């Protein structure tokens, strides 16, 4: 329903785009990127708060350049919420109804519906918004944004100031708003866990460019390029060369590690590639267990060089024997306790061929940018 075509934005020294992005009606898209990537600026251009330097924004197929923000029917929840401090909670929520001169009876019904959905019975009677808690402020701002029946809801890091428990409740509310009210949501966040948890499609924006667009699993296990891999905290990245194409379609790679991988990419022998694997996908072979078929390909003897505890899990740093490479892997605490491992212990690890991702290094062309177009 909203679509950006070759959108470019210049804001001071910052350049964004060209961005091609289309958000179908009813979907939940998370825009994920580090701070300074241009996420807020992209939102502002879509809303008409910032004039793009080039390109078009289309809403339901209609070009928006001449339409001011108040004609776009987009609801906006900025990071600081911007609840009006001179109005009561109820007047804040009804603000959109009053300036749009909506039917008061219909607005009252809508208000009652939103108050019930967002548990706002208590806060609704408050005169001074500064007496609300952080989570209440969020829900009041959400009710205000949703009252005029918007087609689209844009959220700009709405949870950055809240504690984890309240954030979880609001995330569940947002999924409910998306499903039950049918509101299309574009949710900006720098928090990877939040992006994955929200469960819809994820667009990764880094340095003003849309780097990747795909499902949680696509983004998590298959970064489109090295900057996405680094941003998503891939710890195991190796620079290797394609040595052989195997008859079963897989590739043999050589370099600091010799690996077999099952990438779908058709890369000629001799290409230098970046190869990576998530910490959790690295398998530690228990000494007393047989090695499964899928673990036989990239099996290495290694020595534990460092151990970090993280509360619920431990990260082991292991050095591969007869190679300069070190690999990080995560173990749940229960497994870590069972194995009784320590620094200096010898272990066997396996990098499952189908869990490895492969990228030509300096992969200039962002991937998946056009894969989420309407229809």
């Amino acid at each position, binding site marked *: 329903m909203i679509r950006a075509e070759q959108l470019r934005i210049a804001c001071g020294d910052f350049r964004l785009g060209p961005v091609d992005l289309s958000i179908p009606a009813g979907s939940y898209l998370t825009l994920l990127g580090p701070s300074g990537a241009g996420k807020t600026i992209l939102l*502002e251009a879509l*809303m008409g*708060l910032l004039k793009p330097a080039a390109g078009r924004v289309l809403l339901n197929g209609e070009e928006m350049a001449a339409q*001011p*923000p*108040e004609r*776009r029917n*987009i*609801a*906006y929840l*900025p990071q*600081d919420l*911007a609840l*009006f*401090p*001179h109005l009561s909670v109820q007047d804040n929520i009804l*603000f*959109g109804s009053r*300036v*749009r001169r909506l039917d008061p009876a219909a607005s009252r019904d809508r208000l009652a519906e939103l108050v019930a959905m967002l548990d706002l019975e208590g806060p609704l009677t408050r005169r001074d918004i500064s007496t609300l808690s952080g989570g209440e402020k969020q829900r009041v701002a959400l009710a*205000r*944004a949703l009252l*005029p029946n918007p087609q689209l809801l844009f959220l700009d890091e709405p949870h950055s100031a809240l504690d984890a428990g309240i954030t979880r409740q609001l995330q569940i509310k947002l999924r409910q708003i998306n499903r039950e009210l049918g509101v299309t949501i574009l949710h900006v966040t720098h928090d990877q866990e939040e992006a994955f948890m929200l469960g819809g499609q994820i667009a990764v924006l880094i340095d003003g460019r849309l780097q990747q667009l795909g499902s949680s699993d696509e983004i998590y296990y298959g970064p489109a390029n090295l900057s996405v891999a680094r941003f998503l905290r891939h710890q195991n990245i190796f620079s290797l060369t394609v040595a052989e194409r195997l008859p079963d379609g897989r590739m043999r790679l050589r370099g600091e590690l010799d690996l077999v991988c099952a990438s779908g990419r058709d890369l000629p022998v001799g290409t230098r590639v970046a190869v990576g694997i998530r910490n959790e996908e690295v398998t530690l072979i228990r000494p007393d267990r047989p090695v499964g078929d899928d673990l036989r390909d990239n099996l290495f003897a290694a020595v534990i060089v460092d151990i970090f505890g993280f509360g619920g899990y431990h990260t082991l740093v292991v050095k591969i024997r007869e190679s300069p490479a070190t690999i990080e892997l995560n173990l749940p605490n229960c497994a870590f306790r069972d194995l009784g491992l320590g620094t200096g212990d010898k272990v066997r690890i396996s990098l499952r061929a189908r869990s490895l991702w492969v990228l030509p290094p300096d992969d200039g062309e962002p991937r998946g940018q056009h894969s989420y177009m309407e229809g």
Partner: protein
Amino acid sequence: MTPHHNRAFRLALVLPLGLLAGYFLLLLGGQAPYLNGSTLRAELSSSTLLDAIRLSLVSATIATLAALAFAVPAGYALARLNFPGKRLLDTLLDLPVVLTPVALGTLILMALNTPPGRFLHSLGLTLPFTVAGVIAAQFTVVVAMAVRMLKASFEEISPRYEQVARLLGCSAGGSFLRVTLPLARRGIIASFILCWARAIGEFGATVMVAGTARGQTATLPSSIYLAMSAADLSRAVVLILILILISFAVLFLVRLVGGRRP
């Protein structure tokens, strides 16, 4: 804030502050010998003194209201809009704040002799030695200061409020009236009070444009000047007392409103 300041350093900081405070207390207290109940009563029933008070209050109020009528939109435009020549305009509006009011007053007189000045004169506007001249002088001194203050007030209000109001359905003008103006209320009131105090105290420009005709164009500061020229110390003291009371009231009100300091 930090404890463990040694005594010598603390003294080196607090001594100048104490000396300054002592100096200003001396200034405030030095008038006391010239003041007693009977002269106070006599002066307060003098019609020229009452005329001066009335003129000062009326002219300062009109001049300040006129200044705000320009300064509210102008300050908002400087805070939010981008247009070519904005920096030049900003500098031009800084100039009257830095230039001495005596020069500003003289420039007003000279501008009366230009075509726009003559046109206004043909409409019946006469400034030299008139109340209109007092108001024009005070307006000129105060308006640039008002633009500065209101620009700062509007800049303190996050543009997010207006952006959210726009997306909720407000036009640009609607979001200004419904959101920005109410949020700037305290800043506008504080600017009014401080500009009004500046207009009440204005002397240089007023003297140049409107003179110091007793009972006609003599404001409170001009009356002090006249009283001192005539060596009428008791009148001068009463006038100063009134101005000090006004100043304390202004400071009190500004703090009450919670605006920025003078």
